[in-house]
């Protein structure tokens, strides 16, 4: 049942221990939130899990259907193929993930073509369908995303990520740069899509409200270590570690 596993990850930047012995595992269809404040190592952890950065020590394992196997054993090309075919990555800033000089439909279609689609009509139809799924008017298929709002750009990135049918999605503060009113819409959208598609996800956020809404399970990071982990509502309602208690008590009541 384990889809992704990390064992004893260490990573050092100059005099900072970004990851200091991190182990975790993720099951198929499970949503895991990594929470902590900036500098806790959570984004570094996400990048190492997603094969975008390497650890100094430790290993990440992934099950491509034949049992858990270390990522480090994959060649560059094989890793790319895995990332493209089975994974998705949603960045905080959609401008870094999208190409603003090609149309919305093109941004989605490009991912489809990279995974082998060739029929122009099919690609257009699928792109239009995905725009609709993320609540963007399909009539905007040929518009340049340069003219989209921040919330629309983020929804476009979500469409472009999910169009290839990944089984695991990494998300780095997916609502971080957005207005509060837009955040709720994106979160609800992510929540619906992730459940409907049966995805597994690793979500990095500093917002425990986001974690509560989306995640089955949570790990709390501080100074490169996991200080507490468990069922999301259990960790947030009955935090044991001093740092988790501080995080939970620092949130304004809704």
């Amino acid at each position, binding site marked *: 049942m384990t889809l992704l596993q990390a064992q004893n990850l260490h990573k050092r930047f100059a005099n900072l221990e970004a990851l200091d012995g991190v182990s975790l595992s993720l099951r198929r269809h499970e949503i895991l939130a990594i929470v902590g404040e900036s500098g806790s190592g959570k984004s570094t952890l996400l990048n190492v899990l997603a094969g975008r950065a390497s650890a100094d020590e430790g290993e990440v394992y992934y099950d491509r259907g034949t049992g858990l196997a270390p990522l480090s054993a994959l060649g560059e090309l094989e890793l790319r193929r895995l990332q493209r075919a089975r994974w998705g990555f949603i960045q905080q800033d959609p401008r870094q993930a999208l190409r603003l000089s090609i149309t919305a439909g093109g941004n989605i279609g490009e991912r489809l073509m990279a995974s082998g689609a060739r029929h122009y009509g099919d690609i257009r139809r699928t792109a239009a369908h995905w725009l609709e799924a993320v609540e963007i008017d399909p009539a905007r298929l040929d518009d340049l995303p340069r003219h989209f709002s921040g919330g629309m750009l983020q929804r476009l990135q979500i469409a472009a990520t999910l169009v290839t049918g990944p089984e695991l999605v990494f998300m780095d503060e997916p609502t971080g740069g957005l207005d509060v009113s837009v955040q*709720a819409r994106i979160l609800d959208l992510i929540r619906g899509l992730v459940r409907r598609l049966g995805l597994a996800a690793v979500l990095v956020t500093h917002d425990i409200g986001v974690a509560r809404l989306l995640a089955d399970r949570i790990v709390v990071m501080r100074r490169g270590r996991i200080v507490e982990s468990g069922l999301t*509502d*259990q960790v947030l*309602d*009955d935090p044991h570690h*001093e740092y988790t208690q*501080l995080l939970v008590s620092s949130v304004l009541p809704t």
Partner: protein
Amino acid sequence: MIMLEASGLEKTFILHLQNGTRLKVLRDAGIILRAGECIALTGPSGAGKSTLLRALYGNYLVDTGKILVRQEGQMVDIATAQPADVLAIRRETLGYVSQFLRAIPRVSAVDVVAAPLLERGVASDEAHAKAAELLGRLGVAPRLHVLPPVTFSGGEQQRVNLARAFVCDWPVLLLDEPTASLDPANRDIVITLMNEAKARGAAMIGIFHDSFVRDAVADTVLRLEPAKEDI
């Protein structure tokens, strides 16, 4: 048939931000609950009623003790179960009604109520029809069904919460003040719903401050006393 059996439960909260203050709330607490039975938890404020209920749901982690829940024919210890197993127990066996609805922006009342059925794999049409029916029984006007409960009054939110609890035939229901913010008419509807659930074999543990409600649904009373601090 025993549906839930908890024994030897101890729970101490350590408040690190208050100089490590220790609050001992549960001390050798236990309960045995059978199908078709309703147990009312009583006792003074601070005796640990809500803490016990949350512990039974796996929302609070007990320090010691067992919480065996009959999940698909087997007794599973929720106190030591893996998160995925706790979620499965909640999906199939354990329903929980809190005093407040945790409303999610943009999610309509009918979707909130239908959610537990959808998680069990019930078809969307059927789940939504059942949800609308329950909301109707609890007097939530049809025009409100499509609106997110975020803007509802306290009583309306609580009725959405209750509709969600009774939409599924949960074998075990944990109820924390289910009738707290309801008028007498709605309170009577909830009593009827609870008695219907009992009649189909559901086991219930509840905190009912309203003695009228307690007398109408509870078979047994379990009185909790505040745990004494060790000397």
